[in-house]
């Protein structure tokens, strides 16, 4: 039986698609707190995907990674981000570098690019999860795009975290996850990045009375 028609494989694909949908929702969302919630939801889907892969393949360490995802990305990081939003009293993203309809169109194009790029690679794979690779790449690109399109430091952080989710999904898809020690390192990095951005936005607010990173251009000599 070919891998793509396997029930498990189809379930993995379904979860991956839910992750991608969350991405689009984030791009379309103006409210910051909703963006953070959507990120938490995406992380929950990611944990589900990881757990599903762990169940299907019997790789026990992926369970561990899924648990870490839930703790850090579903609980801790969104809490930090919500706190930052509360403290800074910014709820909406008003100015955007690229408006929402155009952004959604670009994201659609990015998904097509991602599928186009991975097309020659996917048939070479033999894993259950191989179709998710294209989706993972699309998530990475959209996360990156979010960082460019938005001006508030918090949504840029969300974009960064979405990219990280994409990388995680990609690793799971391409090789059933990275060695545990690498994953631990990555989680630690993400946590530190979250803390740093928390402090950084605070300093930004103090210095410029705004968390708009466009104001950083005045630092140019």
């Amino acid at each position, binding site marked *: 039986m070919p891998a793509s028609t396997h029930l498990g494989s189809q379930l993995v694909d379904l979860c991956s698609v839910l992750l991608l949908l969350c991405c689009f929702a984030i791009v379309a969302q103006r409210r910051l707190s909703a963006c953070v919630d959507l990120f938490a939801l995406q992380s929950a889907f990611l944990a589900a995907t990881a757990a599903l892969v762990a169940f299907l393949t019997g790789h026990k360490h992926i369970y561990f990674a899924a648990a870490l995802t839930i703790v850090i990305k579903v609980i801790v990081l969104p809490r930090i981000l919500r706190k930052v939003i509360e403290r800074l009293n910014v709820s909406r993203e008003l100015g955007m*570098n690229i408006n929402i309809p155009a952004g959604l169109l670009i994201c659609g194009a*990015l998904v097509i*690019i991602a599928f*186009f*790029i*991975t*097309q*020659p690679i996917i048939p070479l794979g033999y894993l259950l999860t191989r179709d998710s690779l294209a989706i993972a*790449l699309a998530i990475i*690109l959209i996360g*990156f*795009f979010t*960082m*460019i399109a938005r*001006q508030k430091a918090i949504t*840029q952080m969300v974009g960064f975290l979405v990219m990280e989710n994409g990388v995680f999904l990609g690793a799971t898809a391409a090789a059933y996850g990275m060695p545990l020690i690498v994953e631990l390192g990555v989680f630690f990095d993400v946590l530190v990045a979250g803390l740093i951005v928390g402090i950084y936005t605070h300093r930004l607010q103090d210095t410029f009375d705004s968390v708009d*990173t*466009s104001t*950083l*251009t005045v*630092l*140019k000599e």
Partner: protein
Amino acid sequence: MTALLTGLLACYLLGGLLPLCTTRPHLQNLFAHGCAAAAGVVGIVLGVAGLLSTTPLALSLASNIPHLTFAIRLDPLAAFFVLTISLVGLAASIYASGYVDEFSGRVSVGLLGSLLNGFLLSMTLVVLADNGFFFLILWEVMSLLSYALVVTEHEKPGVREAGLFYLIMTHVGTAFIILTFLIFFQDTGSFSFEAFRHPDQQLPEGLRSIAFFTALIGFGAKTGIVPLHVWLPYAHPAAPSHISALMSGVMIKTAIYGLIRVYFDFMGGEFPWWWGFTLLVAGTVSALLGVMYALMEHDLKSLLACHSVENIGIILLGMGAGMIFHTYGLHELAALGLLAGLYHTINHAAFKALLFLGAGALQFATHTRHIEEYGGLLRRMPWTGAFFLIGAVSIAALPPTNGFVSEWLVFQSLFLSFQLPSLFLKLMLPIAAAMLALTGALALACVAKAFGMSFLAQPRSAHARHATEVPRSMLVGMGFLAGLCTVLGLAPMLVVPLLDRVTAPLTGVAISSQVLALDGWVVAPVTVEFSSISTPVLAMVLVGAGALGLLMARLCGKGLRARYYKTWGCGLNLTPRMEYTATGFAQPIKQVFEAIYQPTVKLEQEFLEQSKYFIKHQRFESHIEPVFEKYLYRPVVTLLLATADRLRIIQAGSLHLYLTYIFVTLVLLLLWAG
């Protein structure tokens, strides 16, 4: 010899690490300079052993990095440079143990000592390396450590700029050296020097010529060949004096080593005549301009740095003459030219290091480097004065000093050009000799200025008035080098056979027995009939003449009585303001060579209202045009800055823009790869 080599490396490594393990300055001082001095002694033994041994010592250690092996080879050429480095290193580290007090409280003694050991180690390994990759790594380490040492006093104005200038120049040079090695690599497929030496197929003529030029520019930037010399007068004075002594005395010689290694060892035997001629021209120009700019410097250390350019020129003259003779198959003369160059290399290392240490002693005692603020120091610092005088006489190449012997040999190899078949070269080499003679005369004027204005007459400033003799360790360091200068001058019969072992494998003939006639008492340029000198006899004649004069005075002047009285000053009291100044001393030469110096003189005078014969206030300014900086470097820098200004458009400082750059690059790369 392996044990000696291990001991050498161990001493330097210990000297690099131990000072950092303690916080007590006098322990740091002891560890750093004790280890460096011990390594110096081991290095001297190793150098002599390497010169005397018949088979080169080769060690190598493979590595995981492709093309890189940690290969070491101690052949006579490398041994000679190890010897030179160790001699100066020993003197500098003894000297430094007293000298670093100058920096106490401002600079960490441990760090300075540790860097010194690292610097000496990297220089020693550079000449020992037997793999191109390894050589380049060590070369970079040497450059970076010397940069760190140059900016030791980074809080002083100008020091950081000097360091940056040095860093840029040395990296440009390194780029060209890399190019040279890549040309060889492309031919042989390996970075091993052994492969460079014996390539499977000879490089095509065009590529060989390119390699010749890249090596000349690359090593020339380090050694200070005009017009790549501009960093020397800034960087060498900025460093602490024992470091200046090492940089000027030894580090720039590693580039001479590189040139000999590339030209004689890698491309051995086969070069067109114009290679040697190019070197000869570069040498002549460097020698002449070096000494001319030295004359106009009134900062003692800058003056000495300019003198380095001159002496490198003299070394290149010897090398260039040797290469020309080699092209025409006159192997004995080729060996003579190369030997003269190498002799001058070790001589220059000895006397230039001595002079820099002397300049450091003056700075230690007076806290200034400006010659116009010295004066009358001979009475206050007799030992420093005596050692400085030995160095000054050597650099001016007065007989019977070491500088005289090697410069005389360079002269002779240039005069022997009448044996060449080419009329053009027959004409050109004597012209180079004439230029060298002019250089020698100007050098004499320059050191007369440096010594006379610093040590004689009355003190010109309060600094000089209160100067006292420096600590004993500094005197020992200088005394060692002064002794070395004397030995190198009076005992060519010891030096020439050692040098002959270096040149014999490179040129194919041993000339030691022909250069040394009459059991070594006479030095001759291969043929005794042409000319010959004997420095021991010259020294005896000089001493004898002096003794004879005293004797005559004693015998004939019996009835006369010696009276001691002040110098007669036309009835006025003598003051330092009446003294000859360094600026005044150099003025006639500035006038004669106006075309080269392009001096600008500004005199502002304000007279009393009553009469224009009474000056109320006056101000005198005099500059010389830094020609190379203005016409060669300034346009390049301007062009670079203008280009950078244009490119700033894409550097908007916007976070989103930078993210977009990365994003677009990523997507394009993915599409291109897919």
